[in-house]
């Protein structure tokens, strides 16, 4: 498959060829965000930018009864009622105090995820994402990836697991 792509490239103009090459490398945009962990280094997560709708820093939470504690409530996002999940609580850590809200959209479900900080957006070759060590049972993580500029390692957030109901 990769071979045939390379062969084709010979007959294309440079721009298209580059695009093809990028496709072959399977570059994807990822947003890196941080979760503070008391007495330990920050956890670095990456999420495929396709799922990120926007980042919001000002919101008013309305408490919704009968929900799990990690769901802080709902807020009014320009007329659309969106639930807010505290990611620290979801990981059984202490509640987030002053965070940012990542609005994610997965399978037509909209969810605001409260995180401590957002780092930046980077291009990641999905082929460089490696599996989570089989021995450790990770939650909400589908893979590990070294950040290209070698500034650290990020855990790839699995929307499927995050949106799943337990």
């Amino acid at each position, binding site marked *: 498959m990769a071979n045939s792509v390379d062969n084709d490239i010979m007959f294309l103009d440079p721009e298209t060829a580059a695009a093809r090459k990028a496709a072959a490398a399977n570059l994807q945009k990822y947003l890196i965000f941080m979760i503070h962990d008391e007495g330990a280094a920050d956890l670095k997560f990456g999420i495929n930018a396709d799922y990120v709708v926007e980042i919001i820093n000002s919101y*008013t939470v*309305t*408490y919704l*009864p009968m929900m799990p504690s990690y769901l802080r409530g709902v807020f*009014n996002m320009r*007329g659309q*009622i969106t639930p807010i999940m505290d990611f620290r609580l979801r990981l059984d850590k202490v509640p987030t105090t002053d965070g940012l809200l990542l609005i994610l959209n997965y399978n037509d479900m909209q*969810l605001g995820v409260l995180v401590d900080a957002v780092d930046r957006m980077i291009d990641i070759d999905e082929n460089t994402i490696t599996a989570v060590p089989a021995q450790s049972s990770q939650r909400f993580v589908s893979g590990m990836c070294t950040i290209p500029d070698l500034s650290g390692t990020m855990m790839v957030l699995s929307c499927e697991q995050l949106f799943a109901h337990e």
Partner: protein
Amino acid sequence: MSSNNEILDTYLFENNSLLEQLESIVLDAEGSSAFSEDNINEIFRIMHTIKGSSAMMEFDSLAAIAHRIEDMFYLIREGSMAVVSEPNRPALFEIMFQSIDYFRKEMGKIEAGQPLDKNIDQFLQNINSLIAKIKGEEPAAAPAADNAASASACGYVGDPDFPYGLVVFYDEGCGMENLRAFMLLTSIRDFCGESDVRFLPEGIENDPSTADAVIDHGFFLMFKNKEDREKAIPVIRSAGSVKSYEPQDCKLPAKEEVEIPVVVEETVAAAPVAAASAAPAAAASAANAQANTTASAAHQKESLISVHQSKLDQLSALVGEIVITEAMVTGSPDLKGLTHLDNFAKSARQLRKLTDELQDVSMSLRMVPIATCFQKMNRIVRDMSKKLGKRAKLTIIGDETEVDKTIVDNIGDPIMHMIRNSMDHGIEVNEEDRIAAGKNPVGEIILSAQDTGSEVIITIKDDGRGINDDAVLKKAIRNGIAYPDIEYSHKEILNFLLMPGFSTSENVTEFSGRGVGMDVVKRSVEELGGSVTITSEQGKGMTTTMKIPLTMAIMDGMEVSVGETIFTIPLQNIRQNFKVSNSDILHDTVNGEIIKVMNNYYPVVRAKSIYSLPGGVDDVEDGILMWLDAGDTSYCLLVDELIGEQQIVVKPLPAYVKNFDIKRHGIMGCSILGDGSISVILDVENLASAVFAK
């Protein structure tokens, strides 16, 4: 790809509505065992459209069948209903019903993206053999058909009900032939009942293309009575630009000798004279035409436009936003303390009025008559009465009632279920039993809809044998829903019917009694925000009543606060609000609280504790009690304070939250308040069942 889907959507939508139309025509016609001229033309047109669009979409099997049916109706159209002899008629209707079912089934497959049934040979064979039968008698009917065709030189086949024809030709190049014809028609209708005259081509008043047909074939009028035609002739004479006219008597095919039409052709020379003298008359009739167009609304085609439902949803959502924003602007905290706002207040009032109107209009767009759903039931009753050998008729009342589109889409199955149930279990098997009970031997099911302003009430009533309480109770005990040593009231026993897994029929039949009983009905109606009740009198029949709110998008609610949280409680559920002192509260044996209101005792529910809210009053004397009422439950809810009454736009719970099933805990949805904050809408009935089920 998306444009392709759009074409497919349109195809499915159009064909489904055509099939609905076809079904009602065939059902109507079956009653009289004959298709009228209009029906035949209509069926021909429907089949032609289905054939064309199916061929375009490359659904060849559908096109092939539509083509054969079209062929069959071509024969019938040419020779009128007489070509189908009496013994063949039931087969013709049967084939029509089969083909409607076939098309429906295939449409369903197309919608679901499944491959079509390629094996249509047997079905085609059936149609072909019927065509052969019809053709087999053609020699007898053919001459009549030919005569009919030649009798009406204009090419129209006469209608046996309107035997007295009249063809009018206009001066060449006089223009606007169709409108002239329409004016003429209007003045004829002045003295002749609207149902006593028919005309061709149709649509003359608003379809300019019919002018060509009028030029080529003349304007064809058909009268029921000879006298009317005699009266019409002077009117035609006095109308402008008439070149000639000729009476034509339609022959009932194969019955009478063909009469050679008497052609009375006025000379062209006479026409200008007539035209000149008729000028004022024409002007007068033009004015009449104006007045009559509004009166003869039935004749006008409604100018309809089909819009995708998602666009309407979008519009409703936007209007909802506008309503909220309007409240935000006019109630802005920046305005507090400002005086001299006269002009602002005036504009704000105007804005309020306009947004209210906008809201009403956008809501009305989603309202459709429930008739589409009701008409389908005719077919169910017909099929079941054939299959079960019980004679029954369906009476429909109030099918013009308009309800939200979502309701029409979802209420069909519950209604169908209840009608099947009535046919299967309700109506007696032996007509002797009915006669002995002093009832009409033919069973009757009455399906009615009524709009009360806030909700629509749909009742399904049969005059069958009713519900046998003892049998129901026995069965309930056997299924473990009821306990043998407890006495149940009639109402409670009827409620067992609506419980899951209950079906009174001993044997599973094709139509009902699969064990998935009326609980399905109850659930689907509740999903629409409605409720179901059953009443029955043994030997007299049973009635199912479904109450469904007209629209679920907007409602009047009372805003209340509990700590920081704001709840909205539907106004229709609130009976009374009152302050009480601690001494009014009684305690029961299970740590519950009870209060006496108007000589009745009701449980007290504290909103704070059931929802484990962080804030809120603990002392009853600091809060306020709301006496709530829903379905058959009634209780008092303790809240902090009442904020005020408001019309709110109901927003469904976010998709992610829905999965937690908080609906069961009485949370129906959310609403955005004027200041942009969110209130939680409570479902009084579900809240009660969540609290008292424990």
